[in-house]
């Protein structure tokens, strides 16, 4: 039960903590980095470098009035914010952190991630329709169209990786990258997955369901206190998830670059996976600071007219090359 093997209770607790710490810290890291990029200070008063701002934020959120609007659909209004963090936490069940560290080795692991991403989309949509408010409804509609469109490209873009590694199991995908990362043969797939991941977690600049300047705060306009916190935390878990998935699918997961392994293979694996995941988390924050939000029709046209043909072409060429080489 407490052995260091896949699925033991110890691993489950460790994985839970491994997700919670970066998720809690990301709120502060993001604001500090955005402050740095935009030549201002950011939260720097509480504790060393302002890190206790996280605790202050949480206390503030807990202290707020938890209000359910009388004009809303109460059952759906209460359920909606719970779906996002639950689906995001469940996605981590199939993530292989290091050799022998993980919760389950599902042979449909990649499909599990897609399924959970599909369920997470309900959070924004149900919140939008339950709030019974024009701006929330618009936000929910945008969330539905954006997430269902970009889920398609996300699914097709990772099929190249599945062809090359011959498996849906994420652990086997990482093991298949021992001799070379998949980002080199699958660069187009990586690019599409990056953009689709950004759209799926609807983070800036693709935060059209929230679109603060256009529709106030979109689907979560009516939410306050703990329920808003659930959306907030769910979004950061989503950022952590997508930052961990990109290295696992395209950058060799726990494998060290240039043979820089050290000591125990588990600690080395955890170290390199966190380094790679942190890199992509910082990249997503930089993208937020660098790129303005596109218009809604631009986002949809870009998806269906560029991303879809590109991802299909990538799949076709990858499959043809593997067939020719007699894979």
């Amino acid at each position, binding site marked *: 039960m407490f052995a260091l093997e896949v699925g033991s209770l110890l691993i489950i607790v460790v994985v839970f903590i491994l997700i919670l710490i970066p998720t809690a810290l990301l709120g502060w890291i993001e604001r500090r980095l955005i402050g740095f990029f935009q030549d201002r200070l950011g939260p720097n008063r509480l504790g060393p470098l302002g890190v206790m701002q996280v605790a202050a934020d949480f206390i503030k959120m807990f202290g707020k009035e938890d209000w359910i609007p009388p004009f809303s659909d109460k059952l759906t209004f209460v359920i909606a914010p719970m779906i996002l963090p639950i689906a995001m936490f469940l996605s981590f069940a199939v993530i292989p952190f290091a050799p022998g560290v993980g919760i389950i080795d599902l042979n449909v692991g990649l499909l599990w991630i897609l399924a959970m991403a599909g369920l997470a989309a309900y959070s924004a949509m149900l919140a*939008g329709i339950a709030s019974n408010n024009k701006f929330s409804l618009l936000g929910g509609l945008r969330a539905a169209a954006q997430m269902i469109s970009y889920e398609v490209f996300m699914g097709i873009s990772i099929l190249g990786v599945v062809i090359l590694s011959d498996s849906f199991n994420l652990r086997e995908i990482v093991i298949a990258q021992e001799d070379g990362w998949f980002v080199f043969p699958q660069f187009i797939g990586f690019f599409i997955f990056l953009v689709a991941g950004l759209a799926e977690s609807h983070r800036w600049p693709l935060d059209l369901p929230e679109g603060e300047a256009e529709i106030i705060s979109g689907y979560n306009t009516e939410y306050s206190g703990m329920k808003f916190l659930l959306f907030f935390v769910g979004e950061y878990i989503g950022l952590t998830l997508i930052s961990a998935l990109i290295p696992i699918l395209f950058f060799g997961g726990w494998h060290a670059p240039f043979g820089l392994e050290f000591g125990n293979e588990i600690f080395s694996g955890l170290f390199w996976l966190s380094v790679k995941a942190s890199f992509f988390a910082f990249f997503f924050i930089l993208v937020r600071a660098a790129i303005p939000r596109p218009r809604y029709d631009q986002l949809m046209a870009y998806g269906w007219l560029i991303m879809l043909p590109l991802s299909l072409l990538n799949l076709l060429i990858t499959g043809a090359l593997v067939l020719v080489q007699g894979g």
Partner: protein
Amino acid sequence: MSVLFYGSAIIAILSTLLVITRTNIVHALLYFIVSLLAIAVIFYTLGAPFAAALEVIVYAGAIMVMFLFVVMMLNLGHVTQDQEKAWLVPSIWIGPSLLAIPLLIEVIYAINLNQETMATKVVGPKEVGIALFGPYVLAVELASMLLLAGLVGAYHLARK
């Protein structure tokens, strides 16, 4: 495993009943999603993880989203709820119940006939793929052509 199977089977039946009797369409959709998730668990316990994953991705993750999308687009509100209440009178249950009773008897008979336990063999993604593009390739091609026709039809309707 059998606890999981019967538990999710009961959840599936109860939530499907609730889908039919709800007058608020969003609540009905919520129960429908629960029912689909329960069916996915049943697939998993029967040794078909690929079918379980597809059930969640395609039905719960895509088709139900489309339903909800249409509900949001039309946004008819309380009018439909009153209409549903008017339609859902006890007398309309007689006909369907009479038709369903023979089916129930057949199901009970079939269950008693076949005492095989579940989960004899796990069917992974690879086996499903080989079956689809081996012996059933014609059916797959026909289904894809039908979908293409639907796509072209939707495009034509939306152009006007």
